[in-house]
């Protein structure tokens, strides 16, 4: 805990006493919280083993409901991430273009889709186009709405990451490229982008968490992802509460693993030494350098 050493002195005898008192209070807080949950659950009869055991004893719970749901979640997330990567790269380069019109149009598109809630796009696409489209088989309509909605939003976020990644490179990189006779777009493609992409890798992994969480919005457009699967499971086994808790646990575990992975990638990149490609993190304000910490702590 780095903040620990910044804010507090090494504790003396009185501070140590105070800390033990606070420790006791903290433990009491945890115990009291746990007890309230336990009381409420048992009052409502939700601790009945019969409601919980199907998750262990009945494989159908997993093979028929939760795993297919999770698979749909993964499918939508993977498709959105790939498409958002392409979209983000195109519009990120657009925002860095030396043609003013291209820069301007990309800027408007990116800023628009960044400021419109994903759910608004999803319901509009689904009810307005995909659900009634004749060219799209009906069963693909929800997935199309989810993937397009997530792509537009997350692609715009990635476009911003590309832009800030390139801007955080030392100016000498672009100058060197130009002075050996590369054109501005060649400099961007073969010198600036590769370095920027490497620097934004942790932030990209962090963005995966956002995509995975947002697939749950698909439940509004009837996409059979994990949350919808938990709902169906809950009505089939009459254990709604338990089904949601297990689904939440799956989400938390997968996303937490991704967050840890993003941190690992960041440290791994840091260990590979400060080559010219590493952004001048000391010289620029922290909000322009995309880090895993910054992204995974954005609420979307």
């Amino acid at each position, binding site marked *: 805990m780095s903040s620990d050493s910044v*804010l507090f002195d090494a504790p003396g005898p009185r501070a140590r006493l105070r800390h033990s008192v606070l420790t006791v209070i*903290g433990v009491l807080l945890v115990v009291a919280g746990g007890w309230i949950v336990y009381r409420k659950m048992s009052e409502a009869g939700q601790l009945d083993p019969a409601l919980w055991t199907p998750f262990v004893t009945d494989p159908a719970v997993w093979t028929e409901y939760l795993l297919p749901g999770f698979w749909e979640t993964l499918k939508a997330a993977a498709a959105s991430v790939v498409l958002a990567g392409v979209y983000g790269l195109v519009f990120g380069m657009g925002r860095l273009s030396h043609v003013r019109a291209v820069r301007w149009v990309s800027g408007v598109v990116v800023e628009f889709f960044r*400021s419109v809630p994903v759910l608004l796009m999803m319901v509009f696409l689904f009810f307005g186009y995909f659900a009634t489209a004749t060219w799209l088989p009906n069963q693909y309509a929800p997935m199309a709405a989810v993937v397009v909605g997530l792509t537009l939003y997350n692609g715009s976020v990635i476009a911003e990451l590309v832009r800030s990644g390139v801007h955080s490179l030392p100016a000498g990189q672009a100058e060197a490229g130009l002075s050996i006779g590369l054109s501005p777009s060649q400099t961007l493609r073969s010198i600036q982008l590769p370095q920027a992409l490497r620097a934004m890798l942790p932030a990209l992994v962090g963005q995966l968490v956002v995509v995975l969480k947002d697939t749950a919005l698909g439940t509004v457009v009837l996409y059979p992802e994990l949350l919808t699967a938990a709902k169906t499971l809950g009505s089939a086994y009459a254990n709604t509460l338990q089904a949601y808790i297990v689904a939440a646990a799956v989400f938390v575990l997968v996303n937490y693993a991704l967050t840890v992975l993003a941190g690992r990638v960041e440290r791994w990149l840091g260990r590979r030494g400060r080559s010219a490609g590493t952004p001048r993190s000391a010289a620029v304000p*922290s909000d322009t350098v995309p880090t895993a910490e910054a992204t995974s702590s954005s609420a979307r």
Partner: protein
Amino acid sequence: MGDIIGNYDILGAFWVTIQLSVLSALGSLVIGTVLAVFRVSPVRVLRALGAFYVNVLRNTPLTLLMVFSILGMSIILGLQLSQDQARDSYWWAVIMLSVYHAAFVCEAIRSGVNTIPAGQAEAARSIGLTFGQSMREVLLPQAFRGAIAPLGSTLIALIKNTTVAAVILGTAEAAGLLAQITENEGASLPTFFLFALGFVILTLPIGLAVTSLSRRLAVKR
């Protein structure tokens, strides 16, 4: 288009969006500050409690929290906040938005604390300031300035995330109303842009204010 504005209560839906945003912004600020104090405290149990809360809530989809609040908390566990079902959903939406964004507020404040170099605290102590004085005069002002930008983006995300409340509020809320209008009247791009414009109007000034504020108040190092 004129019919749509006449027949549906779009302003009312955005009024709900604004209410939800303000109430849950306040709620998440209170809970998030308490959590941040926990997470930077010198007591291990409190730190672990804060970290557990943040890691669980940050990684759970808000949609799941919303559905869980009504089906799980209100109906199954009987924790009704109001006799009226619509008010019950409304208050549960506020609670879930607050609880979810509190995790991000906590991280924003903590990242503000983490921007302070250790030398600042050491310098404050070596000129003889007490713990309270060094907190008040040296550390917290800097931490607050460092936290402005992330707090601002959390607020913007919160305003956009109020649409998720449509899962339990239905057409009383902007996204739910747009879904209903589109389903009844067919796709109308002007209507979509009207809704989108509503969110741009709500979030754009905040974004601009936060950017200029964090630039003006940035700690020169």
